[in-house]
């Protein structure tokens, strides 16, 4: 359907360019070359086609844009109906031909629009590419924090700090020198818990960990702390590996990460930087929910929170 939407987009582009570049030819073929009104109408319709094309070719929401084509079709059919009523002979025959073609296209547009809308409404959540049936997923991300590497390392090594900036984590509790207990919250579909152990560590430079036992989603991670060339900052390089299972849990995890799993980790590291450099995660009126601000659009309007919204706290 995405492909058909794109096909319609290219068709709009072709039609639009033709109507703008060679309006005379279009008017002759359509049998309306005798009307002064059509001289104005044809380029306008061409410009409109370019809008459809831009929408269908660039937007991921092909459904909405396919509907704009349906509306355009209705406008075209109305104009054609008026034109037919005023003509006879070869012009009328040409007009009838064009009208037939437009009716066919309308059916196609309507079909695409309805299907695209329905797919959006009831379709499965977007899945992580390659992880539909389960399998490993690797995520990397990096940021620069204007703090010495020892300090950044120490903050991360206190694993209880991770949930302050990692959106999916509810709690990480140290259970020994190198062992810890992790829980991830609702976004994973249900609460998921697992144990982890640090498998490699160099103070101020690196921490590597992996889940132990028999977790729902086996995972591992490495974070490296590298002094930046400016002499004051630290580059933080993170690699996370998830072994996503098949079945319901795998589906929930895949849905959580969405179409752009890297975005999650990028945002996590942005919050790490905020916490270390400014003291906490910054809230705005449009995006007041701190690390829970996952679904970024549409946001609430940029105006102050009501008392009941405020009472929900920073991580509502």
């Amino acid at each position, binding site marked *: 359907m995405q492909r058909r939407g794109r096909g319609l987009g290219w068709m709009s582009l072709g039609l639009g360019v033709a109507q703008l570049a060679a309006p005379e030819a279009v008017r002759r073929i359509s049998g309306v070359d005798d009307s002064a009104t059509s001289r104005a109408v044809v380029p306008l319709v061409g410009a409109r086609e370019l809008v459809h094309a831009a929408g269908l070719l660039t937007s991921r929401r092909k459904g909405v844009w396919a509907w704009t084509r349906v509306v355009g079709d209705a406008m075209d059919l109305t104009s054609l109906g008026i034109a037919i009523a005023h003509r006879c002979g070869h012009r009328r025959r040409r007009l009838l031909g064009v009208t037939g073609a437009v009716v066919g296209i309308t059916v196609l547009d309507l079909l695409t629009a309805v299907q695209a809308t329905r797919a959006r409404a009831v379709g499965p959540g977007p899945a992580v590419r390659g992880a539909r049936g389960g399998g490993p997923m690797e995520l990397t991300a990096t940021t620069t924090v204007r703090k010495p590497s020892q300090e950044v390392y120490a903050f991360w090594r206190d694993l209880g700090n991770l949930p302050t900036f990692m959106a999916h984590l509810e709690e990480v509790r140290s259970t020994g020198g190198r062992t810890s207990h992790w829980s991830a919250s609702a976004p994973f579909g249900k609460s998921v818990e697992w144990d982890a152990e640090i498998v490699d560590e160099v103070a101020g430079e690196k921490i590597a960990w992996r889940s132990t036992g028999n977790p729902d989603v086996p995972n591992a991670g490495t974070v490296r702390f590298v002094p930046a060339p400016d002499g004051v900052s630290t580059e933080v390089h993170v690699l996370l590996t998830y072994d996503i299972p098949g079945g319901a849990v795998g589906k929930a995890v895949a849905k959580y990460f969405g179409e752009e799993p890297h975005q999650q980790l990028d945002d996590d590291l942005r919050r790490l*930087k905020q916490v270390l*450099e400014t003291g906490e995660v910054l*809230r705005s*009126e449009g995006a007041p929910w701190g690390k829970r601000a996952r679904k970024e659009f549409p946001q609430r309007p940029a105006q102050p929170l009501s008392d009941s919204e405020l009472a929900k706290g920073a991580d509502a």
Partner: protein
Amino acid sequence: MRANTWAGRNKVKVRDVPDPKILNKRDAIVKITSTAICGSDLHLVDGYVPTMQNGDIMGHEFMGEVIEVGSGVPADKLRVGDRVVVPFPIACGACGACAAELYSCCENSNPNAGIAEKMFGHPVAGIFGYSHLTGGFAGGQAQYARVPFADVGPLKIESDLTDEQVLFLSDILPTGFMGADLCDIQSTDVVAVWGAGPVGQFAMDSARVLGAAKVIAIDKEPYRLQMAERAGHTTINFDEVDVRSRLLEMTGGRGPDKCIDAVGMEATHGAAHVHAYDRVKQAVRLETERPHALRQAILSCRSGGIVSVIGAYGGFLDKFPAGAWMNRALTLRTGQCHVQRYMKPLLQRIERGEIDPTRVITHTLPLDEAERGFDIFKNKQDHCEKVVLKP
């Protein structure tokens, strides 16, 4: 409280909204005494900046009295009762960009950095009342505003200067000044400024203060050109003469040494067909800008000169004269203003009487008449140059 909000393309509406509250420890709440409508607000209202939402409080030029501070604001930085001007970019003061005084590129002040990054390659700072792309912060065309990082941004006014004398330190005066500052002005320089709106006027005054030999204002509104003339600048009306040839005449064929684009994405062009070409492309979103001023500045500037861009751009433009730029060794410099960098020195210039910011104010209206204010400012009615709103 009452606040002026975005209500869809070409529509603003003053409505009742909740009072602002402290959301972060380093916040302050400011009771606003004066606020203003900026030319860049028009880009939002005209619908050329994406991610606006119905109900967003507008406005990024405001000042007032601190009535509440968060627990993370040190008392030696800001206290309840302080009179402050608030800079429009929100900046943390601690990241790499802030350390380099690039406050409008602050790496921590935009909760929607992910979106901004997709649009611009790297994120930009949060800005009050300026779309969700710049953070979704409520703006200052209101009775009260929440100010994040209040220990970094707000400038305390401890003298008895009037609101009108210091309000524009929030944006347009530093923005105009930065336009001139980026030009590395020498005493031999002829500086041409495209756009005689409020930012353009302050860019002209700043160029003179920084020692330019001659300052030329380019616009088409006679009343705006007269305002520049009254301030002692030379003028060109692009509706009446060809700008490039007039500039060549005025500079012995060299072209201006430094050029400032104080127009941005919604320029109008003297030639109807060129304007129509860009207007259509902008309307169907094939380019987001109408960059005539920038094109003309690049083509007019003398070889080896500097073109400084402070007019706002948001997306993509075409027919960029890259050949002129490259072959004639031009330097292009730009940025949203790093207001925090310029506030203090400019306050001193105001105190010394070197710059008079009040000269651009033509209208003062109650906040409840914001709608009318936008209307006359946008349509340049009643010789409107700058509207100040009183909550």
